[in-house]
């Protein structure tokens, strides 16, 4: 379980993450939603030790991220941020192989190689594995990055807006893959999402942030409701139930 308590982060005078205390349940998909500037990405970066906090603490299965060695954490938790601007020309295979770095430190054994092949085929990248990243489309590259994170084989997988750059088909494929990873590999996936319908359809749990604070949290059934969405997004959103899932219509 990931537990944050009293997490605060300031940029100058403004608190971008303001006293966030949450418990992210182990197993399943947890989505973090909220308007732009709510502090979702910043919180994800703090939880994954990419960014320091000004006060508060984060523990992952009891390990405090501020003082646990980084390579120990790298075998527990992986993080993929958005816009991964990359200048290096690496092949898909080589990129995915670096996911094994926390274990192999560069010397791949048979087990590592099995993980690499598995991650590549998990994301349907077999045909592309010898291509350079700069020769791929945005969506293919995104899948390669996710394959690297899968190859890292951590209990917790944190993804910041993983559906960016993906068309509907691949966005849906990505979410189904996350569900599959939770079910088959026992992963805990935490996502920052902008599309509340994806969050509603695929998540087990949703956390809503606004102005650096957590304003609501709960299951999709509890959260995807007009009054809750009004509080989060300041707009009137109709919610319909289709096939047991709650779907929001926010077009005006």
């Amino acid at each position, binding site marked *: 379980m990931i537990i944050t308590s009293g997490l605060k982060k300031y940029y100058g005078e403004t608190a971008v993450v303001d006293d966030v205390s949450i418990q992210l349940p182990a197993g399943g998909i947890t989505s973090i939603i909220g308007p732009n500037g709510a502090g979702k990405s910043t919180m994800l970066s703090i939880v994954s030790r990419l960014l320091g906090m000004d006060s508060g603490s984060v523990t992952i299965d009891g390990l405090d991220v501020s003082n646990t060695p*980084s390579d120990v954490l790298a075998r527990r938790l992986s993080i993929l941020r958005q816009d*991964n601007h990359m200048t290096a020309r690496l092949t898909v295979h080589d990129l995915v192989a670096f996911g094994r770095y926390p274990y192999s430190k*560069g010397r791949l054994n048979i087990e590592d190689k099995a993980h690499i092949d598995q991650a590549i085929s998990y994301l349907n990248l077999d045909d592309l594995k010898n291509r350079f990243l700069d020769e791929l489309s945005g969506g293919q590259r995104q899948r390669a990055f996710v394959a690297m994170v899968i190859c890292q084989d951590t209990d917790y997988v944190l993804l910041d807006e993983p559906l960016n750059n993906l068309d509907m088909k691949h966005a849906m494929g990505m979410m189904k893959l996350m569900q599959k990873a939770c079910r088959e590999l026992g992963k805990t996936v935490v996502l920052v999402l902008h599309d509340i319908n994806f969050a509603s359809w695929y998540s087990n749990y949703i956390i809503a942030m606004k102005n650096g604070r957590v304003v609501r949290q709960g299951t999709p059934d509890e959260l995807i409701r007009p009054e809750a969405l009004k509080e989060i997004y300041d707009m009137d959103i109709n919610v319909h139930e289709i096939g047991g899932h709650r779907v929001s219509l926010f077009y005006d």
Partner: protein
Amino acid sequence: MRLFILAIAVTLLLAVISLFVGVSNVSLQTLFSSDAEGRAMQVLLVSRVPRTLAILLAGSSLAIAGLVMQIIVRNRFVEPSTAGTTESASLGFLVVTLFAPGWPLIAKMVVAAAFAMAGTALFLRILRFVPLRDVLLVPLVGIMLGGIIGAITSFFAYRFNLLPTLLAWNMGDFSGVLRGRYELLWFGLAGTILAYIAADRFTVAGLGQDFTTNLGLNYKRVMTLGLLVVSVVSAVVLVSVGSIPFLGLIVPNVVSLMVGDNMRRTVPWVAVMGAAFVLACDIVGRIVRYPYEIPISVVVGVLGSGVFLYLLLRKRQNAA
């Protein structure tokens, strides 16, 4: 792999040619004839072999320094001479020459390396304030920083009547290489080996700070290691043979186009191609105006600026 063996073979062939090109007549025939106290053999051992070794070491290590620099700055167009590194090393060398002229060359080299490291760190710091981190803006900032440091160096060299000496360092030249005056360059080989050992770490760092942290590596430590390799190599080459511009830029870029950027694969390629390129340029410099020589920095500078322009324009076309 077959290509790589071919590259090594070509380099060795060039090295052999380098042994036999020059004003003094050194050939297999003169080597084994028993004329004038084995003069040819002496030339070979005192001048030609050290020169060829110096070229191999300087060429490979400078190319590696360029590669490491491009990886840690994450920009294709930086190398020690477009990041203020060479100029800082030169300033350091001047300072130590002024204040401690009696120190052994190795101590001077250490001072020059320390200055190179400080100058490059300053460059990296300035880069944090460059908005957008435009691909072409980064080397421009480096060249400007180098210009400022170079101007300071020139000013003090002028005041202390050391301008000719400064000119000699800044003009890379292998003609002065003799036995006993190039051995520091073996430190360059150490830099190359270090780059190979830490190749995976550098490649990961080249993916960016977030990727590096995610994989459990200490980003700052990898950057510092890279700075160390770049600074030591730049300083060693500067005090031994002078600066050779553009070399660290062209070779890694060509290799990147050929085999990509996974350093485990590129380090051997860059080292071999760097050595071969400098060998070829040096041989050309010795032949063009025979029996006179054109300094290596001129030959590499002319060829290098051409290739640099080509790479810049190519980049622009790709971006458009």
